[in-house]
Structure formats: structure tokens, C-alpha cells
């Protein structure tokens, strides 16, 4: 088992070390911070806007993160020859592929945790801010500190990582990625404590929306074994198009963030819809790996 754990961890590190991963994560966080502000000025209902922005950011940016992370992780190993080095050890081909896919999934989990943390923070800020704004009608004063905190959560990790790189030779992108995720999750935990845990209803919604991203991740990993990066990405576009008619399954997430009991049946349904596809693509990936020369 140890070789596969090593491959999984190295892959997670590889994905987290990619500038694209950091960029996508920060873009998702920025989308969560700024989108509700602009929307609220037009439509009102701040908590709904914060929630929708978070789920949209997770779905769009999560799909990009999963697809490009998986393609890069698998394809780079094949094209640079590091896969040869690994397969010359006591590592089964199918196991190597699964460990690579698991590594991308670990990095994606860190990404999803960061997005969730920011979502919870903004959701709480929107709830508190909305209540105050209704009483005082001074929207800018309420949102100002909340957006400032969100911007700080994006900029602070970059500054810290640059300092650690300058003085202690830490790897900039990797450090920034984990600090950004840490700051976001910590912010989410503080917000949850402040709101008495109400905003945590958003977390299962985030998990639900992460399901299609996992389908895309497994598809990208499988296609990358057989096809070059551009072709694999194009095929993932086809998979996404095929999934769109069933997206209402995942967007039952909305019901999770309403009041009342959490409808676990919807979560189970989303998992049931995603699991066969994930398993199917992973089986394809193993098959491609075994027959690859």
C-alpha cells in the first residue's frame, strides 16, 4: 500500500504546486467575495446571492481545477517519463493510475475546503450584513468590512508566501496554495462559530456540487492516459455536455441551504448519480493503463 500512498501524496503536491491551481482557487474565492456584492445592489436577498455565488464558483472553477489538474498530473508523467521510473518499481499499472487520480482528488478536496470556507464566511457576512442593512439602509458600511476581509484572505497568502520564499526558500506557489486554503477554512470556522453554526448548512450543498467535478476529474484522468492533453480536455467537454441535463440533481443543493432539516435523500441521490460515472471512468483508465506502451 505504501507505494500508492507515496504516489497519491506526490500527485497532490504536484497539483498544488501548479500556478494554474493557485490561480483557479484564488479566482473562485474572488468570485465568492465580489459576485454577491454586485448582485445584491440589483436584486437584494444577500444570503441567497452569497450562496449562489459560492456554488457557481465551486462548479465552474472546480470543473477547471479537476480537469486540468487531472490531465496535467497524468499526462506529464507519461510525457516526461517519470511514469517509467515509477512503473519500474513494485507498482502495478492499474494501482498507479488510481493513486494518481486519488492524488488529484486530495488536491481537489483542499480546493473545495477553501471554497467552502470562503462560502461560509461570505454567507455569514451576508446574513449579518443583510439584517443590519435592513435596519440602517447603509449597505456600503455593512459590506465594506466583509469584502475587505475577503480581499485580505486572497492577498494575504500571496504576501506571506512571497516572504517565506524570500527569507526561508519556501516554494511560493505551494506555500500560497496551502496558506490560502488554511486562511479560508479558518475564516469559515470563525464565521460558523459567530453564526451559531447556521451557515454550516452550506457545506453539504458544496459537497453536492462537488460531485460533477469528481466525475469530470475521473474522466480527465482516464482520457489523459490514452489521449494527448488537448484531446482529453475536449472529451471532458463532451462529458460535461452529457451531464448538463442531469444537473438538477446537483442543484438540489439549494434545498440544503434553506431552513428545516437537511434533505439527506438529495445528497444520496447526487452521490448515486455520480458514483457509477466515476467508477466507470476509473475502470476505463485502468484498462488504458494496462494496455499502454
Amino acid at each position, binding site marked *: 500500500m*505504501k*507505494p500508492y500512498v507515496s504516489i497519491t501524496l*506526490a500527485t497532490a503536491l*504536484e497539483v498544488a504546486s501548479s500556478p494554474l491551481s493557485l490561480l483557479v482557487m484564488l479566482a473562485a474565492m474572488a468570485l465568492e467575495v465580489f459576485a454577491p456584492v454586485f448582485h445584491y445592489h440589483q436584486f437584494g436577498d444577500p444570503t441567497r446571492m452569497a450562496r449562489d455565488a459560492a456554488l457557481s464558483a465551486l462548479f465552474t472553477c472546480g470543473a477547471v481545477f479537476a480537469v486540468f489538474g487531472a490531465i496535467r498530473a497524468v499526462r506529464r508523467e507519461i510525457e*516526461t*517519463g*517519470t511514469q*517509467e*521510473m515509477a512503473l519500474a518499481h513494485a507498482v*502495478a499499472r492499474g494501482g498507479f493510475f488510481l493513486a494518481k487520480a486519488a492524488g488529484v482528488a486530495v488536491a481537489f478536496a483542499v480546493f473545495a475546503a477553501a471554497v467552502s470556507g470562503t462560502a461560509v464566511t461570505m454567507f455569514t457576512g451576508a446574513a449579518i450584513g443583510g439584517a443590519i442593512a435592513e435596519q440602517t439602509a447603509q449597505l456600503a458600511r455593512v459590506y465594506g468590512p466583509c469584502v475587505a476581509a475577503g480581499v485580505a484572505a486572497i492577498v494575504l497568502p500571496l504576501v506571506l508566501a512571497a516572504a517565506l520564499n524570500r527569507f526561508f526558500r519556501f516554494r511560493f506557489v505551494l506555500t500560497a496554495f496551502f496558506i490560502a486554503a488554511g486562511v479560508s477554512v479558518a475564516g469559515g470556522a470563525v464565521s460558523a462559530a459567530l453564526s451559531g453554526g447556521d451557515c454550516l448548512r452550506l457545506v453539504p450543498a458544496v459537497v453536492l456540487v462537488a460531485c460533477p467535478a469528481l466525475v469530470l476529474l475521473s474522466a480527465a484522468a482516464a482520457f489523459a492516459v490514452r489521449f494527448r492533453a488537448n484531446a482529453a480536455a475536449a472529451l471532458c467537454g463532451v462529458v460535461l455536455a452529457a451531464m448538463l441535463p442531469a444537473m438538477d440533481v446537483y442543484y438540489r443543493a439549494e434545498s440544503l441551504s434553506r431552513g428545516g432539516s437537511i434533505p439527506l435523500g438529495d445528497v444520496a441521490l447526487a452521490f448515486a448519480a455520480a458514483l457509477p460515472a466515476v467508477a466507470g471512468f476509473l475502470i476505463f483508465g485502468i484498462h488504458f493503463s494496462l494496455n499502454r506502451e
Partner: protein
Amino acid sequence: MTMEPEIVVSLNGVSKTFRDFWLRPTVVAVDALSLGVRRGEVFGLLGPNGSGKSTTIKMILGLLSPSAGEVRLFGLGPRSVAARRRLGYLPELSYLHPFLTAAETLRYYAGLCSLPRREASRRTRELLAMVGLEEVANRPVGGFSKGMARRVALASALVGRPELLVLDEPTSGLDPISTKEVKTLVKALARGGMTVLTTSHMLADAEDICDRVMILNHGKSVAEGRVAELGTSLEEFFLAKVGDVQDFALAPFLKG
């Protein structure tokens, strides 16, 4: 009565034909090759670029499947995980993860060899000292020179204390001093009882380190035997055997 040394690697009538998308044969890289590498010896596969050395190595490692014939590694199929647990491999190009540091790279390969964490750390320090890279242990290998990357790759191949070390062009891209260091290291490993299978198109490498060699040309074995048996100079023998071949890349270089 002396016992015959165990055959660690055996190829029996092995051929490899590469095919295009329509399964039409494009290149016969290896043609009916048979060889046996005995435990404890340094065996060299020699030949010019494109003679089938790397393809043969990849079939031995299970990275390519032979079109015909049989490959056995420690008596097992080359894709057997149990067989590959006993070997270390240095590819022709130093394939390394650029985002990992030298120490992390060795710990990664120690993980692939299932070494316990403490043993992996000890072995990492030991090997970095052996290849002279202790000072840069915590720098990402992506910024290393070709020679430094080669040394990290060699250390990676040795991390699991393999019984069989497979070296594909081990001195490729190294300066003369590093080349001499690698040869000294291979000789020391062989003296310690390790079996070494190496490829090279540099005859001097083979003369210095190999017990037995096989000369390949166009995927076929041209000659096989002990270095001492192949004539006064391996270079002269090499030219005599394959020097008349017009498209043989090495011949003009040797003559010139």
C-alpha cells in the same frame, strides 16, 4: 563441482515490432534476441543509437510487451510486482518531478520501494552524501543541472537496495569527472555483489566496467562474450563487426 550462477534476466527469442495506428509494422526494433544475465556480473548491451538497446531494457522492465519470445526477470514475468521489487532502474534521461526537492525525490522513491519512514530518511541522507548532493538536498530538482539531475536519478535507482541495477546510458550527459565517478560507483556496487545490466554506445564505458557484453545492431545480436575474449581492444572488435555498416552512427565517429 562449481555451481552455475543464477540467471537473473533471460530473454529467449525476443522480438519487438512497433506498429502504426492501423497495426501495420513500422519498425522492427529488436529481432529474435536471446541473452542471459548472471547474478553478480556487469553485463553491457552495446550498440549505436537505434540499435534496440533501450527497447530491450524496457521489455526487461515490463514497460513494453515483446511481440514474440519470452522475457524472464528473476524467473518471473517482467510485469510481476514481486520481480520488480528487486530491481533499480536508471533511464536514459533523468526523469524527475521538478517540483520535488532532491531529498523529497529520494523519499518518494523510498516510498515506492515500501521502505519504512525512518529507514527512508536514513537512506536518503546516505545516498545524497554518496552522490555529493547533501548541500542542495532541499532545492527543487527542476533547477538542477543535467549532471546533478543524473546523480539524483542514480541515487533514486539505488534507494531500495536492489539486487539488479538496470542502467540505460548511465554516463549520458555527464562531464568526464562525473563519468569517472559513476563508473567507480558501478564497479563498487558490482564488487558488493549487485548484478548490473547497462547499455552504452560509448565503448570505453563497457571496457571499464563490464564483465560481459553483447553488441547489438539493427535489433540483432552481432556478438556476445567476455570483454577480454572479444579481442585486444573492444573498439577494434566493434569496428570489425559492424564498422562496415554505412548507416551505423558510431562508426564514422570512431574512425574519425
